[in-house]
């Protein structure tokens, strides 16, 4: 539980609390809106890859992690095996476990709240909660962001799938560039150090080098995992 906001001045506190709540609500909405283009592209690319609307919805409702969802569809769309597609999605989703440790340390949820909190522990809700960790509004920040992103993500993926279905293949020429573009936008903010930039390049190079020799889909896992191993070696 977050500590209550400071209460030494009874005349000012309600107003400042209201302002803080409004600020959090607005930021949560802004963050939610920012996932809409990503959801639209994911929905459209998914139906182009012959996923049904129901499958798209299940991914957004249960998997609920944009990078993993898009990776799953991208590997399948490239002709990779379902095993390599699922493997890539799971490895990309592993970071949410790390976020869970941080969020659990902040709030220690129990029972159904823990399940709900775990399911909505993603990049956005974690970042918001951590940024409010000392303000006393961390719990509100987490839930508002989680709700906003969950609702808008699901609505936008459905909309993207419906639009993709309606337009059909001819109009979606060029859609095979949506995956690489989306992944680039997701990758850029994570290139925070020279080591990260180096392993990113190494991973791409290793993946491409193995393309002619291993089953389709495997190069992503091989590049990704060997570059992480490389990083652990560099760290020593």
């Amino acid at each position: 539980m977050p500590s209550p906001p400071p209460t030494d001045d009874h005349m000012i506190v309600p107003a400042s609390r209201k302002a803080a709540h409004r600020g959090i609500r607005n930021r949560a909405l802004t963050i939610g809106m920012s996932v809409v283009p990503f959801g639209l592209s994911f929905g459209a690319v998914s139906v182009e890859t012959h996923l049904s609307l129901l499958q798209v919805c299940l991914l957004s409702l249960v998997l609920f992690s944009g990078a993993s969802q898009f990776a799953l569809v991208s590997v399948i769309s490239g002709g990779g095996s379902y095993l390599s597609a699922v493997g890539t999605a799971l490895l990309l989703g592993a970071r949410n476990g790390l976020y869970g440790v941080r969020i659990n340390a902040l709030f220690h949820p129990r029972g159904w709240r823990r399940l709900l909190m775990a399911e909505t522990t993603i990049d956005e809700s974690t970042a918001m909660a951590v940024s409010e960790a000392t303000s006393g509004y961390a719990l509100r920040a987490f839930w508002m962001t989680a709700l906003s992103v969950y609702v808008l993500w699901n609505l936008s993926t459905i909309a993207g799938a419906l639009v993709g279905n309606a337009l059909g293949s001819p109009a979606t020429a060029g859609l095979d560039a949506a995956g690489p573009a989306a992944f680039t936008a997701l990758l850029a903010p994570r290139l925070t150090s020279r080591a990260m930039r180096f392993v990113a390049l190494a991973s791409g190079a290793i993946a491409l080098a193995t393309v002619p020799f291993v089953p389709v889909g495997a190069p992503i896992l091989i590049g990704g995992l060997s570059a992480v191993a490389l990083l652990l070696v560099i760290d020593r």
Partner: protein
Amino acid sequence: MKLWLAVVIASLGCAALKLSGYVVPSRFVESPMARRLLEALPVTLLSALIAVSSFASGSHLLLDSRAAGLAVALILVAVRAPFLLVVVAACATAAGVHALHP
């Protein structure tokens, strides 16, 4: 049927990974090496995904309209353009190049 299985396993697996942070002893996940690994995995996997989905076609390397789309995406991401613009411009470029060189 296999596609359904992939969708269900990926969904439940990723949900379980999220929950794992709440139930696995934190000293295990919070060890410096595990943290480093979990932070680097998205970087390397996203990079491999970009490379393969831009330059591979099945088991062949192929330079086609997707590369033009990626080039535009890289430039727009570098100048911090909004996500929608990055994706739309990349797709439009790829579609344009594809129309010129089918």
